[in-house]
């Protein structure tokens, strides 16, 4: 019987030993506690955190995550693509594979759709990153911490600036309109937070204050790479803001400041030669004209051959792409393209109506063992469609590569030249015209002569230059709203010039409600301060053939 007791005691001992520990941690993912603790222990980690805030807006499966695996969920470039399509400058194919057909038919104004949700949430997710960064710096005691703080604030200002332009009509004349909810310090908890739409003016005041502070605190800061802002980029942002506010003096001043500071880093406008290398342009932060870019390298995609990246949806040169493998190429509105002079290098950024461009002559691409002239279908690759863009390059310039990564421009110095010219011209048209002519002549079209411009006035000419130069980079709808222009895709029912599919042929009047994004349903459902009635009124989905009489002063000139 003693044995029995011994055994039983043994069992009790086992129980005591086996008392499993209830404190477990994941090995792989990082918990909030682990994160905060390690940052506190080692302040140097904050540099990475700062970089990650910048990275956030461009990461793959940006908003919905990999489990949904959406092919339009690639962050900022997806917003730019939607924006250009909405505005009419980027023409999309009418196909079941065109993930951005909702931008073509303005279905993206449907509050339940994924596209507008992504474009809303990605900016706010980045704002949360910025706030988390700022919360990890209770006191900026060192120059490093000061600069991280400044960057967090500046980036947050950039996000609000994007949002205010997408969700409210422009500053001029609309300062008291409702804009977007703001998270000024901490958005870790909702309790006690007023998440109502702030006025346009409130948002702009905040943006300007934060940018001013950032400029000061970034004095002497040397950035790790171009995915992070520095003083020149912040001056660039200030120039953009001033342009919207029609504060021409400041716009010119800041643009000049941005140009000067950028030049100190060796950043200058790309030469004609530099922007005539199809494949290796508009694809890397290393390009000398980029002031700020989203970094998206091979290690940032889940697997090689990924369909859910911006390269797959915008660039026409990689295989494993929605563009090349389903034929959903992104083309320029032929009306706009027709305004480009033959002597302008940019004319070759898009193939012509016969799918030819001087910039792609002699180039080849290959797929599945077949090789063909670039743009001619082979293997699984489709033929280019008329006006397909070859502006955006491809990883390492390799045509037909399966590597669908690539950096995306957030700010180029060329834009600063255009802001400077526009602001100058608003104050003094001659000076502005000179600045514009000098820029275009030097860097894009040696034969350019302002006096022979196709457009009727200076404003339209600068806008035309912006639309061509910045095509696909996210400025199109912002400019339409800022300039209070109509959105024009075609010119009446007998128009056969436009390459917009007939089903998407419609125009919208200036400051039409449909030009604004609508706040997604889930925001409204989760936000006690914004009801469905507080949302932007988009009206009915535009139909084929409406407003044929509208003209914008640019696309109708030739």
């Amino acid at each position, binding site marked *: 019987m003693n044995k*029995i007791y011994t055994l039983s005691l043994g069992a009790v001992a086992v129980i005591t030993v086996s008392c499993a520990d209830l404190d477990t941690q994941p090995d792989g993912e990082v918990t*909030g506690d682990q994160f905060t603790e390690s940052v506190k222990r080692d302040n140097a980690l904050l540099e990475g955190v700062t970089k990650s805030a910048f990275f956030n807006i461009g990461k793959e499966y940006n908003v919905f995550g990999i489990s949904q695996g959406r092919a339009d969920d690639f962050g900022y470039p997806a917003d730019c693509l939607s924006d250009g399509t909405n505005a009419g400058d980027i023409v999309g194919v009418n196909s079941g594979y065109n993930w951005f057909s909702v931008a073509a038919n303005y279905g993206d104004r449907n509050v339940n759709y994924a596209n507008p949700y992504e474009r809303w949430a990605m900016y706010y997710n980045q704002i949360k990153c910025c*706030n988390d960064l700022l919360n990890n710096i209770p006191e900026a005691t060192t120059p490093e911490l000061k600069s991280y703080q400044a960057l967090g604030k500046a980036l947050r200002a950039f996000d609000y600036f994007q949002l205010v332009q997408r969700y409210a009509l422009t500053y001029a004349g609309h300062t008291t309109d409702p804009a977007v909810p703001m998270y000024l310090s901490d958005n870790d908890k909702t309790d006690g937070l007023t998440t109502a739409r702030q006025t346009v003016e409130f948002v702009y005041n905040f943006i300007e204050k934060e940018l001013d502070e950032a400029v000061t605190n970034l004095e002497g800061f040397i950035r790790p790479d171009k995915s992070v802002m520095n003083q020149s980029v912040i001056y660039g942002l200030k120039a953009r803001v001033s342009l919207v506010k029609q504060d021409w003096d400041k716009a010119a001043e800041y643009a000049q400041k941005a140009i000067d500071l950028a030049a100190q880093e060796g950043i200058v406008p790309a030469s004609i030669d530099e922007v005539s290398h199809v494949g290796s342009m508009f694809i890397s932060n290393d390009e000398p004209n980029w002031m700020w870019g989203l970094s998206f390298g091979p290690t*940032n995609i889940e697997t090689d051959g990924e369909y859910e990246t911006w390269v797959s949806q915008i660039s026409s040169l990689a295989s494993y792409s929605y563009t090349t*493998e389903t034929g959903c190429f992104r083309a320029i509105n032929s009306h706009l393209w027709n305004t480009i002079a033959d002597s302008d290098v940019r004319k070759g950024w898009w193939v012509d109506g016969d799918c030819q461009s001087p910039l792609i002559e002699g180039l080849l691409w290959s797929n599945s063992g077949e090789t063909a002239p670039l743009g001619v279908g082979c293997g699984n690759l489709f033929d280019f469609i008329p006006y397909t863009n070859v502006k955006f390059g491809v990883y390492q310039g390799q045509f037909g590569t399966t590597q669908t990564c690539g950096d995306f421009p957030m700010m180029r110095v060329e834009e600063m030249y255009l802001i400077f010219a526009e602001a100058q011209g608003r104050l003094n048209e001659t000076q502005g015209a000179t600045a514009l002519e000098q820029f275009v002549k030097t860097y894009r079209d040696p034969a350019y002569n302002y006096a022979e411009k196709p457009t009727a006035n200076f404003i339209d000419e600068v806008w035309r230059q912006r639309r061509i130069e910045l095509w696909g980079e996210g400025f199109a709808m912002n400019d339409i709203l800022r300039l209070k222009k109509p959105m024009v895709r075609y010119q009446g029912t007998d128009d056969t010039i436009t390459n917009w599919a007939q089903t998407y042929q419609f125009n919208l009047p200036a400051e039409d409600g449909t030009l604004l994004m609508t706040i997604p349903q889930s925001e409204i459902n989760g936000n006690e301060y914004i009801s469905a009635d507080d949302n932007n009124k988009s009206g*009915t989905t535009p139909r084929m053939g409406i407003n044929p009489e509208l003209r914008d002063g640019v696309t109708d000139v030739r």
Partner: protein
Amino acid sequence: MKKKLTMFLASLFLVGSALAQTKVSGTVLSQEDGQPIIGAAVKVTGTSTGMLTDVNGRFTLTLPTGKNQLEITYLGYEGKTVTAKNGMRVFLKTDAAALEEVIVVAYGTAKKSAFTGSAATMKAEDISKRQVSSALNALTGSVSGVQVTSYDGQPGKDPIIRIRGIGSMSANSKPLYVVDGVPFDGSISSINPADIETMNVLKDASASAIYGSRGANGVVIISTKQGRKGQDAVVTLDARWGVNNRAVPNYDVIDNAGSYYETMYRALYNEYYYAMDDVTGAHDYANQNIFTNEGCQVFTVPEGQRFIGTDFHINPNARLGYSDGKYYYTPDNWYDEMYNTGNLRQEYNATISGSTDKMNYYMSLGYLDDKGIINSSAYKRYSGRLKADYQAKSWLKVGANLAYTFEKQEAPGFQNKWGSSGNAFFIADNIAPIYPIYVRNADGSYLYDAMGIQVLDTGTNTGQKRKFSAGNPAIDLKLNSYNQEINSINAKGYAIIDLPLDGLKLNANLNAYASDNRENNLYNPHYGSSSSTNGAVNVNHYRRQSLNQQYLLTYQHDFGLHSIDLLAGYESYDMKYRLLETNKQNIFLDYVGELDNAIKYPSSPKSNTVRYVTKGWLGRAQYNYAQKYFVSASYRRDGSSRFAEGHKWGNFGSLGAAWLISKESFMESTAAWLDELKIKVSYGIQGNDHLMNGDDEIYYPYQDIYTVTDVNGTAVPIFNGYKGNKDISWETSYSTNMGIEFALLKGRLSGSIEYYNRTTKDMLYYKPVPVSIGYESYPINSGSMYNRGIELNLEGTVLKLKDVEIRLNMNLTTVKNKVTDYPETNKGSMRIIEEGGSIYESYLRSYAGVWRGDNSEYTLAEGFEPVLGDALYYVDPDNGNYAVTDYSNAKQAHQGNTLANVFGGFGLTARAYGFDASVQFAYQLGGRVYDHKYQGLMSSDGQNGHNWSKDIYDAWTPENAQSNIPRLDTGVDDSQYTSNRFLVSSDYLSMTNITIGYTVPARLVRSIGLSALRIYFAGDNLALWTARKGLDPRRALTMGVSTLGNGYSDTYAGLKTISGGITVSF
């Protein structure tokens, strides 16, 4: 046979007769299996002469003069009186009613009559009828209170089980699975259904509260078979062969190219006409775009003529088939081509079981090969089990239960991904009937490539660029391979020690489970998505391992009529799950799915480990007086690693009582017809820590989660969107159960009726926050809801003759779900959760019909100018605004609960002259389901090669002005607009199983050395009746989710299996 019983009965018959004159000998056998019955009492009627049968079932008696009747009795069998005859063989029938049923409950067993809780049992004989790879599928319609749904028909996949409704909002509502006394982590399909003796579903708190944290959603106790006491080794072999087919056909879609084109033409015509008001222009537009819109021309139209005329009919001179000189194009029937016929299913099982004085053993080997219904999809299972216990010492019993399963699952990717070009089900069901599946040469012959592979149309490899789905799932399924090899071991060792105090025992159980899943996927280099990278391989490894320890002290004692049964113990559970995922590209051999066969390194291999730990102290006391009054109480204190410090522990417990009225002396007068009448009541508190993140497991729900990311060369954790909350703790449910059980007319009619009410409080759910805050929600404990209803079970023998018996069974469960306390209103895109509603309250825009130009029919919202045939939606019905407007200006409105409120099953079993037949049905009533797939098939704009339901023929036209289906119009993006228009009844009736068998008479089979032989035919999932052809409401319990990416409508379809089989015992 029972040793003690032998002695007891022997004492009754010890006195033989000295006046014996005639000697007779004979054998007593079981009618069921022809086995000899050992220890049956044989008594000469009217005397005290008798004896017990020996190990061969034999007896020898000397009959007193004038006596020739023998009474033969044996416990559990119906007694028989026969005329004595030398060499006679007497067959006894089992007496179901006479056997006191014992059911397996938490940490032990209980007599059914003494059980105070609520349980439903499914037995081996019913499970074995079903041709299922997961035994859980057999529960469909079989037991009350249990709902079974399955959105994935891939063989080897477990269905989703809900017991008495959905008990949680964001926490997992799945029940706890306990296999042979120990919580089980693996998939139930890894257990050979042939090994299962019973599946016992514990539904109320008094039955399952002792499982504490994990029993809140009910418990399914699976008990594997064991040797029958006193039984010599019995070997049973079973083999069955059958074929699978798709159980539910597609919706009634347009099935010929001509009709499809005419419909598309109408949509194009309308787009132009209703925008431009120009008939000629509209016809021009439609004719110009008819082929380009779909990207496929399969008609040859004479030069200079139009394909479709102004009468909207195809030009009679156009003929099907088109050649561009290089290829010939003609549509193929994707549906017929995709589901290959002859999908064999075969299953073989061999078992040996028996027992000796000291040992009880059960061994089995099983093999299942189920080919599914599409190429590359299959499931093979090799399973073995060895289970034995041994009375090592008078005070020590030890045992082990080892189960090893090797599963080879071929489950092609993307089959459950809505909209994916790799999803054979999505494509076959939804593709317009105009596309070729094969590439044909200009002369119409099939094209083969240089390797001899038949070339399929990928939508991009011919002159015709298909706009619906680039790629071709058929070529993927043919040339790719998807292999998962899963080794799982479930090993339990236990010891029961009789402690010196009589009735006191210590029971130690250790259970280790390990499952290793190695997945090799090969994507071929020739065709499809990986041809650009010259093929690709994924190699993944998933390991789940857990250790469960139980130390239980039990004490059982009777004091006269008082009987007590006590249990105290400790249990801990430690689970670890690890994954490793890698991939490589550019392969050499086109049939080898290993990394060494590829050269290009992966960009992101990944691995991680998560752990989940619980521990708990438990106790239970059961008391009964005279087997009439029963009381039980249980308590458990549980800790979980899923909560933060200070919130880990919870206290749970239950009380139950039962009264066996039929045993009361005042019920004697009813004894003739009332066998049993019991009233029971119970109440208990249980916990749930299993917070989910959508469909994903989340092991650290209280923590914010970051993912380490490569940010330009720096490793930085990036917030992945999951926001935790350290204040969360146990969700608690409070269950009440009341019931009556009865048996009448010597077991001819039995049944039970129960009322249940489970209130869940401090619900774990994700509180939505403004998206602008940077995440969508975070978990909290708040609010409460209940699920309540009644359950009815009836089983009756309607006909019982000597050789003929017919039994009927039915069960019915009602469930009502109501949110009783909820601090906010949680609005989703399709549902709303708020106080007073159900958790599946639908919340959709209200479809009002079609604009017919009649102002008296509808009030138009201000500024709304509809076009004839436009879809109309009510502006805000919840606030009484029934003016109509377009979709974007209409508001979501309450559309009512969608959960079915009645469900159950019924069936019939008949036996006659060796034949047996049974048929089982399952049903559901009173719910609704969102019919996503139909919505897709009814889109007005015909999204680029997406097919239509034939119902679209009835769309509004000026000639068909009374239609409620909006005008076809390629310019109106109405297709994905979600509204109550697509909410339909989820009522269904399904025939889950038919079995017909014949048992060859025992005396025939014995002559060939067997003890039993049965042949049978079985059909599973043979028919389904629903609101609409193609709709399968069994795919989701609730309204489903939207088509935004993961609707359950286009997933691997359910299987229909027809088999024949043979069972042999010796």
